[in-house]
């Protein structure tokens, strides 16, 4: 079952297209990393999937229902970039309000997690630190037992220790409950050990959408003489090439090295940076491999 399906999804604000012609098919159970420069359309995409914005073109389907519909909203939890909460309430009132607003609510989970956080039930939500608010928002999102969790860089405000702990907790939920996660992140080093699916967005368009395994299997980092660089471009699809003196380092979409080139497997970091550097030429066929 696909947890996210978008066809020709587009969103226009006044004259500019924040998202254009997005096609995504993400299977359930994946942890998807959404990567892209600022203004690439990550927040827009996440908001559409969460039902906070309506698409201008195309359709978006989450957990088999139209994004924004009642069933979709039941099964999807989203924590927006702004970490939305009722800031003028006290924590315990916010908890009670969230419980009243939801059909499915795990009181034990919420209380358990909140008790492990350094915040008191009687403090005003608006007075909490950024990290505490992020933890609170995440707890409330998870207490709904969603099937899909959408995170728009909410871990950015957490200290490294808290970040590690939260990620660990989320990964456990992925393992035990089959939770699907889509998170946008700037921390590329984290992607390799956490993400199983990668979506690269740039200028409102999907540059890359595939499982991490298939990507790592289908790309190689080639090293060879700079003089052969042009010839190589004709032999294999070249994503990026960096020349250093007489040597050139190439990221190519191939699984066998052409003769004369030394090959080694790419790291996730190199892969992501490579695709981020290169804006999508329409000529290059999009890589999309389902698991």
């Amino acid at each position, binding site marked *: 079952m696909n947890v996210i399906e978008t066809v020709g999804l587009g969103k226009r604000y006044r004259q500019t297209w924040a998202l254009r012609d997005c096609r995504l098919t993400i299977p359930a159970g994946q*942890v998807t990393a959404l990567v892209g420069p600022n203004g690439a359309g990550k927040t827009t995409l996440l908001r559409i999937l969460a039902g906070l914005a309506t698409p201008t073109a195309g359709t978006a389907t989450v957990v088999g229902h139209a994004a924004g519909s009642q069933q979709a909203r039941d099964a999807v939890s989203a924590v927006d970039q702004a970490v939305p909460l009722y800031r003028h309430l006290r924590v315990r009132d916010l908890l009670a309000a969230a419980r009243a607003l939801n059909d499915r609510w795990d009181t034990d989970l919420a209380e358990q997690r909140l008790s492990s956080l350094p915040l008191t039930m009687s403090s005003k939500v608006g007075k909490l630190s950024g990290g505490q608010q992020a933890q609170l928002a995440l707890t409330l999102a998870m207490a709904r037992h969603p099937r899909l969790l959408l995170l728009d860089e909410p871990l950015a405000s957490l200290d490294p220790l808290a970040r*590690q*702990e939260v*990620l*660990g*907790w*989320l*990964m*456990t939920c*992925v*393992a*035990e409950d089959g939770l699907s996660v889509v998170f946008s992140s700037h921390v590329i*080093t984290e992607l*390799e*050990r*956490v*993400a*199983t699916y990668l979506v690269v967005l740039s200028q409102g368009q999907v540059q890359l959408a595939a499982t991490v395994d298939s990507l*790592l299997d289908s790309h*190689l980092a080639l090293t060879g003489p700079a003089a052969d660089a042009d010839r190589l471009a004709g032999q294999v699809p070249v994503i990026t090439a960096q020349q250093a003196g007489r040597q050139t380092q190439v990221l190519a979409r191939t*699984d*066998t*090295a052409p003769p004369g080139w*030394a*090959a*080694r*497997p790419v*790291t996730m970091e190199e892969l992501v940076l490579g695709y981020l550097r290169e804006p999508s030429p329409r000529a290059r066929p999009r890589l999309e491999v389902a698991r």
Partner: protein
Amino acid sequence: MITDKPDSDDGGVSPIAFYLDRGLGVPTYLQFVHQVDYALRLGFLGVGDQLPRIKDVTRSLAVNPDTVMKAYRELEMRGIAAGRPGVGTFITRAPDVVGLKQLATLQKKLSTWLAEAAEAGVDELGIKALFTAALRDFSDGGGAGSRFPGGAGARREGGAA
């Protein structure tokens, strides 16, 4: 799918705990495989010992459970470990350890080669570079997979697992 379902919180089920070395550039699952290998060689793990539960590893290291499962699958393929559904993953066989006598012969050959290189005028750095390049080439097998025991290249060439 290898799942660890018993919800007993008796932490420390496995003699070893995994760690991450981010600077290596080696995929996480391979790091785990290597760590199991080293632990076996050093005697921290023996046949019949349980490997860390997937749940524990994901929580403590914040890695995707798939990564741990890939590592355990790799170990299964190498014949080192096997999963018991509902219980965990256990070591079934220690890797072939090269005999001491073989090791001594190899070391002598290495010393001879070093003397030759030094005579030819290669300095320490040069020797390290030579060795690293050769090792990497052998490891990659020119993109066909490692020719070391258990590597993809060896398997393709019909080498012993």
